[in-house]
Each structure stands twice: as structure tokens, then as C-alpha cells.
């Protein structure tokens, strides 16, 4: 069906409206993160020269500028420090209740993640959550000769440990 005001977009993929990262190897150099994610591994890059292990992954060490990096695993379980349940005004692409938690992964790493497979009122501070990987819509990449190829994608959140 043509989109009102945008009939030219019928059947096309407007990447500027894409919610998820351009994960395909054609569009970034940290694609192993997503390939690892598919194996239920939560990973980042470690600098072989100085040992610095920042998140998100890099292509150059932000500390010593070395580009000799390796992929290492991060913990896939953490503790909920704080959380919020957004019941109204949830952005397109998400469903209410949209739950976010400040998760402590240990090793001095705390960060905000979405919590899925969790009902409103279920989560408590101190709960353990684990990595949850799920499929998201593919990227559409135009190949030579105008051939459209679907590049499958996954993304991550955390979920309560039952």
C-alpha cells in the first residue's frame, strides 16, 4: 500500500527511520558484537596493548590509540539497582509497560537496559536479570544490479531470572 504523502516509498526501506543499529558488516566494523549476541554472548573489545576494555566496543583503543583489539565476554547476568515502568507515552516500536533498569553487571559496570518478559509490578530492586537476545526486522541492502538483500538482525535487553 502506498504511504500517504510518500507514494515513492512503496516497498522501500527508509534507513533513516530505522530504530535499530545498522548491524550488517557492510555498514560497521563492530559487527562481531551482533554475531556474538546471536550466540547469546555479550561482548566488547579489549585492547591487546594496554588491556583497556571499554563498552561499547571500539575499532581503536580510546586510551592508547592501538588498533590491535580482541573480543572478550562481559557478564550476562546482573542486579537491578533502580528501575522504571513507563506506562504512557511509550515510543513507537515499543509496548507499555516499557520497563528500564539500571543494571549492575559487576566489574564496575552499571548501565541502563530495557527489561523484557516482565509484567508491570513484577520487578524489584535487587532482582537478578539476564541477557535476552531477540530477532528484530532485517536491514534491506541494495546490492549490485539493484538486487535487494535482507540482512537479518538481533538486538538485546535483559529479563528476570525465573
Amino acid at each position: 500500500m502506498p504511504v500517504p504523502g510518500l507514494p515513492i516509498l512503496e516497498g522501500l526501506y527508509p534507513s533513516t527511520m530505522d530504530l535499530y543499529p545498522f548491524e550488517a558488516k557492510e555498514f560497521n566494523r563492530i559487527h562481531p558484537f551482533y554475531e556474538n549476541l546471536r550466540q547469546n554472548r555479550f561482548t566488547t573489545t579489549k585492547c591487546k596493548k594496554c588491556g583497556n576494555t571499554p563498552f561499547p566496543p571500539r575499532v581503536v583503543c580510546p586510551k592508547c590509540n592501538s588498533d590491535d583489539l580482541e573480543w572478550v565476554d562481559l557478564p550476562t547476568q546482573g542486579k537491578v539497582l533502580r528501575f522504571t515502568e513507563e506506562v504512557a507515552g511509550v515510543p513507537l516500536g515499543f509496548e507499555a509497560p516499557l520497563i528500564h533498569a539500571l543494571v549492575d553487571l559487576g566489574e564496575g559496570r552499571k548501565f541502563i537496559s530495557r527489561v523484557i518478559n516482565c509484567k508491570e509490578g513484577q520487578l524489584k530492586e535487587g532482582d537478578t536479570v539476564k541477557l535476552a537476545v531477540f530477532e528484530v526486522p532485517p536491514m534491506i541492502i541494495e546490492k549490485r544490479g539493484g538486487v535487494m538483500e535482507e540482512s537479518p538482525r538481533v538486538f538485546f535487553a535483559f529479563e528476570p531470572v525465573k
Partner: protein
Amino acid sequence: MADRKVCILGGGMSKWGVREASIIDMAQEAAKDCFDDVPALKKEDVDGLLFASSYCGRSAFQVNIAPVIAERTGIKPTSICTRVDTLCAGGSSGIILATGLIKAGMADVVMVSGGEKLYTPQRWETYYSEMASIDHDWEGAQGIGLPPPFFSMTAQEHMKRYGTTKEQLSAVSVKNRRNGSTNPKGHFQKAVTMEEVMAARAVVPPLGLFDCTPITDGCAAVILTHEDKAKELSDKPLVYVRGTAQATLHSMSMNWPGEDLADWVHLRIAAKKAYERARVGPEDIDVAQTHDCFTISEIIEMEDLGFCKKGEGGPFVESGQSDFGGKIPVNTDGGLLACGHPFGGTGIRQACEITMQLQGRAIRQVESAKIGLTHNLSGLNVEHTILIYGREP
């Protein structure tokens, strides 16, 4: 050539709110209001334009917007004409950059203008675009937009750690909505009572409707120039840019620089630098416009700007210390909570109010104000920007 002293001459705003107008329309309204405020200024005097906007590329489908604004407003810049994007601090970034250019002799008279058209024909697009205004691939894709959830966690942290109450959060909203009730250019002119704020529907608990800045369309503009030109163009008291700072220590939550979400170390770093550059301390500030995107923000800003001790922001606002007659009146024009927050416009709106305060012609005047401060935080609390203005250089 020795460094020149830089003055802000005056400024103007379009009407802010839910506007039946485009960003290009509102930029013209703001520029007119600004030229009206500095009657001796002619269009041909202006040799620089910095336009601060973040969403123009998404909600107006216009990038490289500065030449468009210059042409529509009849300005022909010959020193600098560019767009600035620091989301919520874009306008303040523009003023910092203009100050540097004028100081160095690389521009003489610069209009810093900015704002947003946030309402699109379908509202979902605004919320959707918000996910591009934080670290998109890592946090936007988690469904974190501009951040009621983030500031809810910040408020929970401050309440648990320091005993801050919902009433203290509400006191910020009551004060700022009252201050905004006499500001004809702001989004809301209706004051709210403590009872109304406390009973309002929850957005993300503990934050309710009146704890959050609304989504607002609008533009603002100011004029900066060097001291000699300022004397030529203005018959009002001169207001100098005394010191500025902008601190960015991280981009996504895993690299948060503080001990917890209520510990805004990047704000303290920016404040220390801005105070040093302005050769003043927090006790010298007579009036401040701080970034009250959420009520909790203003409370933590009172602490980390040094107006009160860490943890005492709640009692400080509740006892009227940030109100007229208190230690330091804050958000005298209504702040973000009453005026709204068209991102690129906010720092400029704050500069307009501080300029009028220091010139003695504000709508709600702080008596004999000599030194003023503006502050923005941007994005998912990743950046703090401070400017200090004074009647003396």
C-alpha cells in the same frame, strides 16, 4: 590584537508553545523580536549567524539550515554562518562559539539564533526522533528517548540517598510555573498549586505531569558583539560574557562519571571552570537560569552549582532559597517547566532573561542583579554547559 571584551546586547523570542508555524517562520519571528530589542542594529551590521537546532534535520527535513535562516531574515553573514547542535545546550554552545569568534577578532556582530519545530503532523514522530538524540545504537534502540525514565531513576536515587520528598520536587514546579505566568512568550501562563502538582497524573513515578517540561515549538535569538561596537549600538547597560565552560565525560550510561545518578560530577567540573574563568564564585551569582527539564534536575543543580551543600537541594528549594527574596532566584522567567524546551532555543531564551535581569528590565526583576548564570544539561545527562554574565567584564 589583544582579546576583545564581548557583550550581549539583547534578544528576542518567537511565541513558544504548540505553534501553527514552521521553524523557518519562527526563526523570522525571533529575529524580528531581537532586532526590535536593539533598535540601532542594522541587518548589514550582522556579519555572523550561528543557528542552534537538533531536530531540523528530522522534523523539518532541512539540514544546513543556517543559510536558509540567514536568507529569510535578510542577514548576509561574511564571517561565519553555520548550524550548531548540542541538543538541549545548542543555543548556549552558539553563544560560547560567538564569544570566542568575537573575542579573537574573527567576527564582529553575531546573531545566535536557534530553536525547534517539534510538533509534526503525527505526534509519534517526535517521540521516535528522540531516540536519535541520545546514544542511538546502544540506548535509543533500548527505547530510551528523552528521558523521563532516566530522570525518574535519578529522582529515586536522590530521594533514597538524601531524603528528598515529592513535595520538594513539586515546589520547583510551583515556583517556575508562577514565574512563567507573567511571561507572554512562554508555553504556559497558568500557575499551578502544590495540590495540583502533587495530584497530577504520573508520567514515570515519582515524576508527574508538572515535573516534566512539555514538548514545545519555538525560536529565540540574541546579538553579541565586542565592547566598542556595543557602546555604539546600545543605550542600555552593557552585559559582558565573563566565563563559560562545557563538560562532556561520557555518552552512554555504562560510562556515567558519577558515583550514582544523583552525583553530577560533570556539572561540578563545568561549574568550577566557569567560575574560575568568570573570576567569581557561586556566592557572587545574583540570578540564575538552570536547566529544569525535570524538577529533580533543578534540585541537583542547586547542589552541584554550589548554591547549597550536596544533598540539601530539596530543603533549599522548599524553603524558598531559590525564589525571589531567597539566596538566589532561579528560573525567573519560568524556566523550561513553564516556557517549554525547543532544544536549540533554550540556552538563548535563558540568555535573553539574564540580559534583561542584568540590564534591570526583566518582567520579574531581581533587584540590582549584577552577575547572572545560565546552565544546560543535554541528552541523557551527558553534557553540562554554563555561561556567566556580568555588568562588569
